[in-house]
């Protein structure tokens, strides 16, 4: 079945959202969805069209034991899937690189004759969960004293005009800190005083134009690299 064909994609998406797509066909569709932007777009459109049908559903209070069961399932022991995305770095083994050393002339940038220690290079790999949203990989070079970071996209990111890419320093505990917006097509330089303090990883998220309105990531995490 050619899932790239728009009319067929639309018909399947409609029946998927309505609920009449069943059995093997539904399972196949579910499997393909993450990798097919055309299908996902069609599904999103049908969800918008049919969404009001679900508004009139009368609410039914779940039994009191349900929430404790959910908590137990997710949080009882510190399970991997209970960790927020920036702590699930083990899942990214094979994707994240160990810290490597490269000679990059950041000394010129900081008006220093020569860095005392070589810069740290971190590869921010594409988040497999978000690869369907917007593929994005970056390389970050950070001076050893943590005062400057240069972020470079591996390939130019196809960013919509009404979106922005925002860079975050992710601590071991606590919320990510914004390092500001970064360019999708060229290197961006970030100057701070302590980029490496209390930082376990760097991440790039997709935000509305102008960046996150809340001070925390509001869009999907496209790319992550641990130090």
């Amino acid at each position, binding site marked *: 079945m050619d899932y790239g064909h728009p009319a067929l994609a639309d018909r399947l998406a409609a*029946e998927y959202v309505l*609920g009449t797509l069943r059995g093997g066909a539904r399972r196949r569709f579910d499997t393909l969805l993450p990798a097919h932007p055309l299908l996902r777009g069609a599904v999103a459109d049908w969800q918008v069209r049919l969404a009001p049908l679900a508004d009139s559903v009368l609410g039914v209070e779940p039994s009191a034991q349900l929430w404790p069961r959910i908590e137990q399932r997710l949080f009882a022991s510190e399970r991997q899937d209970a960790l927020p995305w920036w702590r699930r770095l083990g899942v990214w083994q094979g994707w994240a690189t160990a810290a490597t050393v490269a000679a990059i002339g950041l000394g010129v940038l900081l008006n220093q004759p020569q860095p005392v220690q070589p810069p740290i290079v971190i590869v921010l790999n594409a988040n497999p969960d978000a690869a369907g949203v917007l593929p994005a990989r970056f390389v970050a070079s950070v001076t050893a004293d943590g005062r400057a970071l240069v972020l470079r996209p591996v390939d130019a990111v196809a960013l919509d005009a009404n979106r922005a890419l925002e860079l975050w320093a992710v601590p071991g505990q606590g919320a990510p800190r914004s390092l500001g917006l970064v360019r999708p097509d060229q290197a961006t330089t970030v100057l701070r005083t302590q980029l490496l303090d209390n930082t376990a990883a760097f991440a790039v998220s997709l935000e509305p134009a102008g960046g996150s309105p809340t001070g*925390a990531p509001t869009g999907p995490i496209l790319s992550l690299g641990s130090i």
Partner: protein
Amino acid sequence: MTTASPRSEERSRDLAALLAQVSLGDRAAFRTLYRHTSAHLLGVVLRIQRDRAQAEDVLQEVYVNVWRAAQSFDGRLSQPLTWLTSIARNRAIDALRRHRTEPATVSSTVAGAGADDDHDMLQNFASDAPGPTDLLEQAADARALRQCLGALSGEQQQCVALAFYQGLSHAEVAAHLRQPLGSVKSWVRRGLMALKSCLDRLGVAR
């Protein structure tokens, strides 16, 4: 473009903010999200999975999904409640093949739901008479859908209602209506296409 009411827009923003916090691992925000949405989502699931115990199992799956997938919610692409409702409907439909060994019979043996209830619900939705949806502040999208549903043939409306509201498959709709399977598939397909053209004309979705 949706011209949502101020109250529903505010609710949407609140839910989006909660989801953003959940994506950061904020358990308190997750608890709040559950408190605000679990009754609605259980209602959604119960329409498809009538057994209360199984529906609550499904709801547990739904919130586990929400916790894990919160980081992929994009507030620019979809409304939070639509996103949550879709997860609930999908998990409920997936659970049907696991728990249902025979097709659900849509009859008055199901407590509280006569065979005509959902037709009536759709009639109310499709007509101008005040119905449950009129008690809420309506988004323009809901009015558009109501208008477009009203333009479908009776058979098309019935099939769409049974499929959406009761989670019936083509075969189950055919059994319920005592109509050939081919006719039901055709009514569903044509009904959906007619909805799409009508809603496109009114500017809903793309």
